[in-house]
């Protein structure tokens, strides 16, 4: 309860949570908000690049499609991509980090050296190179992002496990004859859960942003997907006259990523023991 009280006092974090809830709500009810699924993919060319109006709240794009409908439905794509990438990264990074943190052998050593290598190159650059070699498309962009993001989880978990490993209760459990995997997943994992959750929250925002950059560079979603980054890339030629086709997807990215980052920041403040003492 005290934690909740503390969290509620952190206005930016609450704002972040509100944004995330709103974005998730929009994603979940996208078919209700935009009942005409065709509006997303099909437009009337005669109506292209219409400014915002009562009929088209965010105007229309270069093919006469409703920007509002595309931004709303794009929410689903953005969240799906972010969730997939973060989940994949967790699926690789957490077990690897648990193992490396818990064991002492050469396996652990190899995992951490591989992590070092992946962390030695800025993520986007590495993702670009990997996506370049794997071929284009959203799937390979997601794979590239997951492949470059797992080391962050691995590092985090590794550090926490090393810290917890020497705690007395683990020794006690070993004494009781618990198996290693049981100790790791049932007892150690909950202890490292909060940093993972913080990482994942911030990673969601970060992934949405990076995917947008990849979409902008043409290594991401394929048309006619209502992907936000792709929409900016496709519509930037119509600036500044037809500003709406670029501005609204851009704002969608800004607000969503802002939500995840603010919330993640707030969470970090709550769980980070370094800041716990602060007044």
């Amino acid at each position, binding site marked *: 309860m005290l934690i909740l009280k503390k969290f509620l*006092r*952190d*206005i*930016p974090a609450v*704002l972040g949570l509100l944004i995330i809830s709103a974005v998730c709500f929009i994603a979940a009810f996208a078919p209700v908000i935009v009942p005409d699924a065709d509006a997303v993919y099909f437009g009337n060319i005669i109506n292209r690049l219409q400014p915002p109006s009562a009929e088209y709240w965010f105007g229309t794009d270069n093919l006469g499609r409703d920007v509002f409908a595309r931004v709303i439905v794009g929410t689903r794509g953005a969240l799906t991509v972010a969730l997939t990438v973060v989940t994949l990264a967790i699926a690789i990074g957490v077990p690897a980090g648990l193992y490396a943190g818990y064991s002492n052998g050469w396996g652990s050593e190899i995992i951490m*050296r*591989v992590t*070092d*290598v992946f*962390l*030695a*190159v*800025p*993520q*986007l*650059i*590495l993702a*670009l*190179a*990997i996506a*370049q*070699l*794997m071929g284009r498309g959203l799937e390979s962009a997601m794979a590239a992002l997951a492949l470059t993001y797992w080391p962050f989880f691995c590092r985090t978990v590794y550090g926490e496990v090393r810290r917890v490993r020497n705690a007395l209760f683990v020794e006690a459990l070993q004494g009781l004859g618990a198996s290693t995997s049981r100790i790791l997943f049932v007892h150690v994992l909950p202890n490292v859960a909060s940093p993972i959750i913080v990482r994942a929250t911030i990673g969601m*925002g970060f992934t949405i*942003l*990076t995917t*947008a*950059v990849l979409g*902008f*560079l*043409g*290594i991401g979603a394929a048309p006619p997907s209502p992907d936000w*980054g792709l929409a*900016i890339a496709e519509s*930037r030629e119509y*600036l*500044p006259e037809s500003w709406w086709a*670029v501005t609204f997807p*851009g704002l969608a*990215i*800004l*607000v*969503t*990523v*802002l939500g995840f*980052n*603010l919330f993640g*920041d707030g969470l970090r403040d709550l769980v*980070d023991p*370094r*800041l716990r*003492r*602060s*007044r």
Partner: protein
Amino acid sequence: MTRFVLRRLLLALPALFGLLVLTFIMLRVLPHDPSAALAGENATPEQIAAVRKAYGFDEPIWKQFVIYVGQVARADLGNSIISNRPVASDIAWRLPATIELTFASLLFAALVGIPLGTMAAVWHNSPFDHAMRIVTVGGLAIASFWFAIILQIVFSMDLGWLPLRSRYPEGMPPPTAITGLYLVDSLITLRFDQFAAAFKHIVMPAFTLSLGGLASIARFTRAGVLETMQKDFVHYAEAAGYARKRIIWVYVLRNSVVAATTQIGLLFGALISSAVAVEAIFDWPGVGSYAVSAILTSDYKAVLAVTLVVGLIYAVVNIIVDVVHAMLDPRVAENL
């Protein structure tokens, strides 16, 4: 200190070696047959075989790796598939532009982010703190390529204050090359006209790039200041009658900045990443726009060379950051 630097260099070696392995694998294994790609579109089987032999692709894989490491050591990153020129020289020409841009952004982010973060910590949980966090995190959340276009339209097209693109006016003789960084070189040679010209060109791209870094720096400074303010030496300084302003802006800040320096290495990576799109939009002749061209022309040799070079720079920056950190906080050097 020398010992510290040497040990830090030693520690960086495995990661660098891994980077070589990684790029080697991507270079050799993933494209179906590099020799076919290298020989060109209309190559005959004999030509492909000749390329295979010339590049040593018929050697055992470990030997190829040794050859590769040797080439990299000689700064030979191969020839671009498109321009048929050494990738290394193309990158070398563009490197100063990117370094200048990223350092300018970093500097700007630090100059604004550190005071902002400190103020936010001093007025912790006040409306200013909340507003500062929302705004700076907003900077982190903004799609840089989108923001870059908006800046261009507002400040260059509408207001006409700043040049739209490029690093320097066309036709104007660039500053005497000393460091390769126009801002620095023009100052060294006391050519303020050149400095003003270069400065105007760097304002928008550097500002766009700095947004992400600014948020991180402000955040870390804020956390650092909050943490430092809990320390006994701050209470002691207060009790001993140090002026409060002095305690915060000299004492606390110095400690927080020391902690934040470790972040700068990571930030540099983020900056280089955003530089890819930002350079392309501002027509900044750096490594980022080179990477975009290389992606558009599928020049995978160039893409991998960029990966390798950026990785190397990143490693070097992080080593420098650690050394600076050790210089600022003498305990670090002794603990390694």
